[in-house]
C-alpha cells in the first residue's frame, strides 16, 4: 500500500478531515504522529478577513505533493506515513485549508517530517490564496515565486527569502 495519501479537496463538496489523516498515518509500529492543521484566520495583516478562495493547479499540485513525500521519505527513512490534503475553493473563517500528518516510530521524525512537508507545500505547491475582506474587497496574496531554483528550504523554520508566510 502506498504510504502517502495525497489529496485536493473541493470545498464545495467536502471538507478536510484531521481524523482521516490520523487514521491513515497510524501503524502498530509507530509511536509518534504529528498533525498540522492550517485554518482560515479572521485577521491578516490587520485586515478583517471573512473568507479565502484557494485556486489550485490540481494535477501539478498532486505531483508536487508526491515529490515532497518522496523527499521526506529519503530524509526520514522508510518508516514514514504521510497524509497531505489541501482545500480548494471558497472557505470561511475557521475552515481548514490544509492538513498534514506524519507517522513514524519515534516522535522526533514525526515532528520534523510534518514541518518539512508543510513548508514545502506552502513554498512550492501551485496553490493561490485570495483573501476576502469584510469591506467587500478581495486580494490575491503576493506569495512565493516559483521561477528561481527549486526548494532547498525544506525543514527550515519560517525564513524564506527573507519573508515569512
Amino acid at each position, binding site marked *: 500500500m502506498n504510504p502517502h495519501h495525497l489529496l485536493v479537496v473541493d470545498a464545495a463538496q467536502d471538507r478536510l478531515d484531521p481524523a482521516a489523516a490520523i487514521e491513515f498515518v497510524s501503524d502498530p509500529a509507530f509511536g509518534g504522529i504529528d498533525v498540522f492543521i*492550517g485554518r482560515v484566520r479572521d485577521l491578516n495583516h490587520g485586515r478583517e478577513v471573512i473568507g479565502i478562495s484557494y*485556486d489550485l*493547479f490540481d494535477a501539478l499540485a498532486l*505531483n508536487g505533493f508526491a515529490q515532497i513525500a518522496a523527499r521526506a521519505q529519503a530524509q526520514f527513512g522508510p518508516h514514514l506515513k504521510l497524509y497531505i490534503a*489541501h482545500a480548494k475553493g471558497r472557505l470561511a473563517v475557521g475552515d481548514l485549508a490544509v492538513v498534514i500528518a506524519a507517522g513514524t516510530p519515534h516522535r522526533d521524525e514525526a515532528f520534523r517530517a510534518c514541518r518539512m512537508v508543510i513548508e514545502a507545500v506552502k513554498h512550492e505547491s*501551485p496553490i*493561490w490564496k485570495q483573501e476576502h475582506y469584510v469591506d467587500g474587497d478581495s486580494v490575491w496574496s*503576493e506569495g512565493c*515565486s*516559483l521561477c528561481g531554483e527549486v526548494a532547498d528550504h525544506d525543514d527550515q523554520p519560517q525564513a524564506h527569502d527573507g519573508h515569512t508566510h
Partner: protein
Amino acid sequence: MMIEISLFGALRECEPGARLQLDLPGDAGVTELRAALLAHAQSHWPAPRASLLGKCALADERSILRDGDALPGGGRVAVLPPVSGG
C-alpha cells in the same frame, strides 16, 4: 503550433475562462512562449497583471518548465503566479 495556456490565481481573470491560445512556430520552446505571452499580456492585460508575468513560472502537469526547455508534447502550458498555499 497552437499552445493552450491556462491561467491561475491573480491571472485567472485576465482571459475569459482563464485560458488563451497562442500560435507559435514549430521550433518554439519555453523561452519563445514566454516572450509571446508577455507581448500578448502587454497589449491585452492591465499593466499590473502583465508585469506579474515576470514572477510567473510556466509548467505542465508534471513539473516547472525552464527557459530553454522544449514545450510539452500535448501543447498545454500553465502560467503559475507566485504561490501562497497553506
